[in-house]
């Protein structure tokens, strides 16, 4: 399963980055794209291997608790 996820992600990334290079887009666009896909890939692999990392929803809740908005 993990290998399938990695292969699918690599195909999508290769296809899209090729498009960015062909259109001579800015480096910042490629970096943002790679960050989004990189996070998605890492989290997907972790989820597929049964290791769910702490989620943004939990970070948001913790931050709001720290501020005192949520009890």
């Amino acid at each position: 399963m993990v290998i399938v996820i990695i292969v699918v992600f690599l195909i999508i990334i290769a296809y899209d980055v090729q498009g960015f290079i062909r259109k001579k887009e800015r480096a910042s666009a490629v970096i943002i794209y790679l960050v989004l896909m990189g996070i998605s890939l890492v989290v997907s692999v972790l989820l597929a291997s049964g290791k769910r990392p702490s989620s943004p929803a939990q970070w948001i809740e913790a931050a709001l608790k720290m501020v005192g908005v949520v009890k």
Partner: protein
Amino acid sequence: MMEKTQISWIQLFLLLSGFHIGSTVLLSPSAGAGRDAWLAMILGGAGGTLLMWSYAVLSMLNPSKTLVEILRDRLGKIAGTILSFLYVWYFIHLASLVFRDFGEFLCTTTYLETPMVVVIGLFAVVLLYTVNSGIEVLGRLSELLVPVIPVAISIISFSLFTINDFTAVLPILENGLMPVLKGAFGAITFPYGETVAFLMLFPHLNRKDKLKKTVVISAVLSTLLGLLVFFRDLFVIGGDLIGRSTFIPHLTSLLIPEFNVEPLLDINLLIGGGIKISVCVYAAAKALCQITGVQDYRGFTRAVLTFAVVLAIWAYDSVLELFAWTQKVYGFYVIPFQVLIPLLLLLLSLIRKGKPQGEVPDKEGNNNAEAVNA
């Protein structure tokens, strides 16, 4: 930078209506108020309409500018870019929440044996095609599909006409005013406040003079449709079950004798949820495109959709965690995105508009009056 594509006011109206109905066709944000939720919906509807009207005013004060351009224009490049990134996050998170609602509903009621990631993933592929087709196609699609939603709601409502208890609405305010006010607050943030994503779409409207009217009519009609659905559910299943059920309209539809109308509910969710996710993904991709100076937003749609799908699976362990989080945290988490920042921008835009026209010296040092672009 701005696409030359345009949508008509009727297309925008249908997109807004579809967006409103998106998740609310399944989940009632005011359900916590029990049988008094109709009061919460009316109060929330009034507040939500006002909020949406303020988004329309903000857009009209900054004609042809998207949210990202307004943020950068009013708050400066650095602060504007940081807030734009936060909005990108919010739009992706919103899309992931709708994906999860959609996945949870279908995997709980219709596709019991199918993994949620498959259901969400397949839906994402279809939506990728839609978003990449452009805003005009999305507008035309809404013209074709959104009218199906009230028809489906009417079919379900009329089918239940014989099993009604009209006294279920009584007693009114049994638990006091607090649950109603909480429900009203919930209704403002979900779904009215979420239309902040449309600040990325409003510049595409071909008749800017009709923007405020379109937004207000859409908000009012969506509130009325929501009230119709709520009263139907209340009269059929009663106030007690309304307060305890997860997917209230689904439970109601199961009570129709003789035939199964569940697919109608699935269709409503596919249309409304699809429009909501498409708008969020378009808004996020467009925002990223404007932040980075890329010509075409389509370069980012795959990354945004992939991240939204992963986030939908990652963010919540179970449906209970999802509902607990949305009830406890969501209302406070979205206040900056839906209320504080847009109102700050509105205030800054009004101040800018009120300023006298600036005088800029020419090369010879003479003062020439020059219009300050709002």
